[in-house]
């Protein structure tokens, strides 16, 4: 099963992913409608993209009293059936990562469904910070990023940056 792997060290917080997701959900570019969120902290120059990891042991799915949350057998996506969602918000509280949000206009919870296996956030990610890859590939990516950080130290004098 593939996941949307995030590499904060490549993210520039351009917000293409948020706009692309918001557009898919709502037809507009109000970022509040997006399932993926990128937090940007200017003074630390930190860009933090965060989206659902579709946990094997998905607490949102387990806690849902309306059985509105299920797993797509093909993509592995943990997804919400809006028609069944009672709007109780238990899933919002259950997700330890804040990756389920509440759609006030419809009165239902919303979260990433991997766009049926071709996530638009990844298609619109111009920095390469988002990739739709297998979990073990995501581990390789994380190692590559860490290795690069160490290699950069050889080129940059610490303390004089």
């Amino acid at each position, binding site marked *: 099963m593939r996941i949307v792997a995030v*590499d904060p*060290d*490549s*993210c*520039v*917080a*351009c*917000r*293409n992913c948020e*706009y*692309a997701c918001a*557009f898919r959900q709502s*037809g*507009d*570019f*109000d*970022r509040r409608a997006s399932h993926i969120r990128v937090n*940007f902290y*200017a*003074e630390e*120059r930190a*860009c933090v993209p965060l989206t659902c990891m579709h946990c094997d042991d998905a607490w949102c799915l387990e806690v849902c009293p309306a059985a509105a949350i299920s797993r797509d057998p093909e993509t592995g996506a943990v997804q919400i059936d809006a028609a069944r969602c009672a709007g109780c918000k238990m899933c919002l509280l259950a997700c330890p990562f804040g990756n389920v949000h509440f759609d006030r206009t419809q009165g239902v919870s919303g979260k990433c469904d991997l766009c049926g296996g071709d996530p638009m956030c*990844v*298609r*619109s*990610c*111009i*920095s*390469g*910070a988002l990739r739709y890859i297998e979990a073990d590939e995501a581990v390789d990516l994380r190692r*590559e*990023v860490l*290795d*690069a950080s160490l*290699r*950069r130290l*050889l*080129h*940059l*004098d610490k303390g*004089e*940056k």
Partner: protein
Amino acid sequence: MPPETEIQQTLCRMCDDRCGIDVHLEDGRIVDILGNKAHLWNRGRLCVKARAAVDMVYHADRILTPLKRTDEGWQQIPLEQALDEIAARLAAIREERGARSIGVWKGEAIGFGQQENIARRFAHAVGSPNYLSNDSMCYAARYFGFKLVAGAWPVPDLENAGCIVLWGANPPYAHPNMTQYITAARRKGATLVVVDPRLSAIARRADIHAAVRPGTDGALAWGLIHQLVTAGACDADFVEHHTVGFAKVVDYAKAFTAEAVQAETGVPAAAVRAIARAMQSAAPRVAAYVGNGLEHHENGVNNIRAIAMLDGLLGALDRAGGTFFKAELPLRDLTLYEDVPLKHLGPLGAGRFPVLYDLRRECHTMTAIEAILQDDPYPLRALIVTGANPASTNPNSTRVLEALKSLDLLVVRDLFMSETAAVADYVLPAASFLERTELHAHAKHQIVSVTRKVVSWPGVQGEYEFWHDLAARLGIGDYFPWEDETALNRWLLEPTGLTLEELEAHPEGVEYSPSLPGRWKDTGFDTPSGKVEFASQYLKDLGYDELPVYQSPAYRREPDAAYPFVLITGARKLLYLHSRFRNIPRFLTAIPGPEVEMHPDDSEALGVADGDTVRVTSRIGSLELPVKVMAPNEILPGSLQITHGWRDANVNLITHDDRFDPISGFPLMKSVEVRVERM
């Protein structure tokens, strides 16, 4: 019945990046646009501007019928009538005032590739040397900076670089998919240096962000030269055999100690040394890229030349991981500069800014405005504008509008009623990039593509059809013998050995020659001396300094207490390209209007909060707009930024059409002295 679906592959031209796209159609109507995963440049990824082409093509405000200005307002007229009337008025103006009083002005609104040369051809065919374009305010100054030093503007080999240095460039917004090449290099251990007064999107990922004061980049470049020379980090063999003027460089650079650079640019001396060490450590795999941020200054070209010299000193030119010279696609030349030379007629601006005409065959648009208003150096009475919006994008918009309104004939081809179209005598519908077939050579990869005519509108002419039909009516039809743009494309391709059918079969592009770094070793550099020119005899002969002598910007050299702030204009935003796309509703949801970006110390001193309206005044004019208070490291204190292209609060109401870079003729738009008042 389910709709008939189809995917057509072509190139996006919502900006200059030319990403490969899959255009999804249902019953012949475009319903979606996704990235072409096979395209070498974007690899399936696309910014959100691309999908908005669907909205652009089917926008309710599209101009689809020719419009004529009358006393009762716009009148819709048939295309044939419009062309007949325009041709008759052009012929009369040519007869009375001479052919050079007719100008052709090309812009970016419909995304040209090779077709801009049709407009160049028409101008000369009609007998006028006056081809004008957005290039006299964008691109050309960077081209000159590198051309004068290295013989061409080389392409950075970002992916293989060990150190990337971006000067006044913000790829995530300006060339979105360039970003993935930069992050890929960083994941291989490359360091990223970003030189920019603002914490741009790409600066968020910089290992060193050098926040230079606007227009002082040249001092930093000279400071880096000094560091590299004194550290013995230059490529001695390259410098000895392939450059001229090194001794003069060493001598001139002496004044640019790290401390002196700190005093001029605001970049700490330690950071200057750290950047030099990062470059030295990665040399020769140092890839520099200069953005438009360096162009709109009175010292722009020389700042860029100083940066170009760094490539030569490090031996990073034309090397893997450094910068390389792209082989040009050997298309047939559509222009008539050889067959019908018209330099003797005095192309506008060629006297004041000889390099602009000499090296790019561009006339100077600011001089053209003067010619219209003052008949100086001679009258310009008619303009045919194709996809350009100078009323918004040229400096001193008030004066530009006054000039455009005073023309005997203004014809504008565009998709929408732009600020420029609104004052025209005739507005003609133009074809968007999805409605023409055109040849495009990619800016980085040595690939050529032909774009597809995915949809069309009855009565909306393509670019070639328009100039062809107008030429026929003016008795110069012999210059446009091709039946249609496809026939023209075939003719253009002949010397390349490629066929149109091959290109059509490969929408991801066809490689026209392999990329081989080190071309200069065989041929020499494309400069007068055949070497990398640290000192330019060509410029010296024209009366300029042979070295890229650093000139401190006027706001620092002669500060004026009446205008205590320095204004940067034109920083790119993700969703807009110059004056385009303000009519895409969801873009306005995300970025609803113009604002002046300000340091929190300055907003506090002025007593204004985020969203408060202020008046910003330069020696040219003033405008009112809301304040955006930035984080302390996002903009320098005393500096402001306003992005161009907004109909209300158009920042070019206050930019300069009277102060220029002496070499390129580019106007002062990025270190403008202003004052700010609370409303």
